């Protein structure tokens, strides 16, 4: 039995050495904590795009989103020795990124800025977003239309409250489950469900995609 365990350990070790057995986030985080830059780089490569997108959808500005994502990974690197919670690396990164995004919007709101955003409306004014979404893919200008829809939805997200914004980005855009989002947001998963429902209701209202009863 002991021989078998030793064999498994050696096998996994050799597979890892050959890069055939990918380490979990937790293992990589622990290796990074012990000073392995290579382990940190793997985590960075895995999470950089999701984190940029999370922040981008949150603040609606790509150039600042990249800067904040860089800051988030700097904080991960410099605070990795404080990382102790097993199995929660992704939620830790998302929490750091979310806090940076919130602070950014808070600081930004202290200054009056000229907004280049126009009032939310479809490209042809009279057409509702619902029609646009429903029509998507049938018109020859499919790509342009898709971009237009994304722009309108992003403008809608920009108008949500922070707690609604984060839940809708995590669950509906990034595809996290209630449980995964709950770890990031540090709340019970039932709260994620009700917050998500409220967020969708507000967003649907802003975008006028529901015909109210």
């Amino acid at each position, binding site marked *: 039995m002991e021989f078998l365990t030793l064999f498994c350990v050696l096998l996994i070790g050799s597979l890892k050495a050959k890069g055939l057995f990918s380490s979990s986030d937790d293992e990589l985080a622990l290796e990074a904590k012990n000073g392995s*830059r290579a382990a940190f780089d793997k985590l*960075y490569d895995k999470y*950089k*795009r999701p984190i*940029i*997108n999370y922040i*981008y*959808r949150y603040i609606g500005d*790509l*150039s*600042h989103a*990249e800067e904040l*994502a*860089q*800051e988030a*990974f*700097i904080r991960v*690197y*410099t605070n990795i020795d404080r990382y102790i919670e097993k199995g929660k690396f992704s939620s830790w990164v998302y929490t750091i990124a979310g806090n940076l995004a919130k602070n950014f919007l808070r600081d930004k709101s202290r200054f009056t800025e*000229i907004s*280049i955003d126009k009032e939310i409306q479809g490209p042809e004014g009279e057409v509702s977003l*619902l029609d646009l*979404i*429903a029509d998507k893919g049938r018109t020859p200008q499919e790509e342009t239309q*898709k971009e237009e*829809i*994304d722009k309108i*939805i*992003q403008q809608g997200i920009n108008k949500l409250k922070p707690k609604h914004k984060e839940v*809708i980005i995590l*669950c*509906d*855009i990034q*595809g996290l489950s*209630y449980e995964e989002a709950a770890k990031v947001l540090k709340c019970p998963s039932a709260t994620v*469900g*009700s917050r*998500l*429902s*409220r967020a*969708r*209701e507000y*967003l*649907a209202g802003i*975008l006028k*995609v*529901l*015909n109210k*009863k």
Partner: protein
Amino acid sequence: MTCKVNFKDLSRYIDGAQDMRQKERIESHLKICPDCAKALEGLSLLKQSLSEMPVVKESQDFDFAFNQKLNERLQKEAPVWQIKDIFMPRVPILVRVAALLILSISVTLGSYNYYIYNQLPFVETVSGNARLYKADSPNWIALAPNARLKENDRIESAQGTIINIISRGKYAARIKEASDIKIAKLDARHKNHFTEFDIKYGKLLVNTKETFKGSTMALKSPSCQAKVVGTAFAIDVDKPSSGNTWLGVLEGRVRVTSQGEDVYVDAGQKTEVKFGNVPDMPTLLSDDEWNFIQELYQLGEKPQVVLLVSTGETRVDELLKPAPLYILDASPRTIPRELEAIINIINKAIERNDIETHKFAIERFQALIQKHPNPKYNPQFIMFIGSYYYYIGDYEKAVESFDRVVSEYPDYVLSSLAQRAVAEICKNNLKDKNRADEAVKKLLQKYPDSVDSKKFME
């Protein structure tokens, strides 16, 4: 909603987050309630659209900028030794004295070694895969940031790799693409350094600093040798099969030698040396080569705002594109952060060709110049604004900006270019021959020896 199924139920229903009993209750309700069915349809479309929102990709320099910022932060946060830590209060006095004596001898020897060590060039960032042959080990190891480079060390990098190397107070260098470069000679013990790079193949960009003066850098490739005295240049050596060498200079001058023949390559020029031949006579950099060499502006720490136009006759076209604007600033910062943000918006707008963002940026830029007047950078900014107005089709405002540069900053290095831009816009865009002629006359009178006057002189 007024019926027994509410929005929250529908929201959880589309997520599949309900038990079988609740699910059945909603499904039977949906059959009899067209309003709820319609609301569910809208909700599903919204969820689908959100899930299909595109994933944005990071910009090309994201990793590079991240590594640079991380290194800066780590350098700032390095632990500081405190003198009180050394004085061991509970140890007898004689032992303390003996310990301090030993310590001071070691510190003297150590600090000399440390000084020498600190003078060695080090790897600032590595983006991609590269290995380092340490001559004193000797073996190959993976090249990592902070590695100190010594004489006879050799770097081999894979395709797509970028390595930044810093020699404090002397130069910043970047090794690109697949390269094989050896530090053939290195003497950093004195004020003036001597460095010789042996480039088997690959691309190397070097930007020397002002304190490089007195130091020497020599380059060896299979086909030629070059000597550098305070300059910014790039060298590209083909794979060993041909060994041909291309060398372009951004600032200063480089002497290139092959088969006993020397040529001097000045700023804005290049030369090529084919294996076994004498160097070609220097010629002006082409547009593509100019694009490659402009990367040098991203290297090093000189505080400056650079309006990037070449020294060739076609530079008026480059200006009216508009030309990219780079900021390089050391600490403490002399350029307001807001400006950096605006430049980022502008450079992204240029990349994406987005007129609305351009208009927004130009207004912010104008406001900023008024708020923070900076005599050192103002002419560049006004030039840039001029090219911007041209770009968005407001030719009168473009002419106004370029005129302002000439009248307010007549001795500025690009004023002749501004005057030429006025002439070109009046002729080609405003179709105003009189104004165009007047502008050319002014150009020839004020800047007869400039590269911009050359075309009209002929």
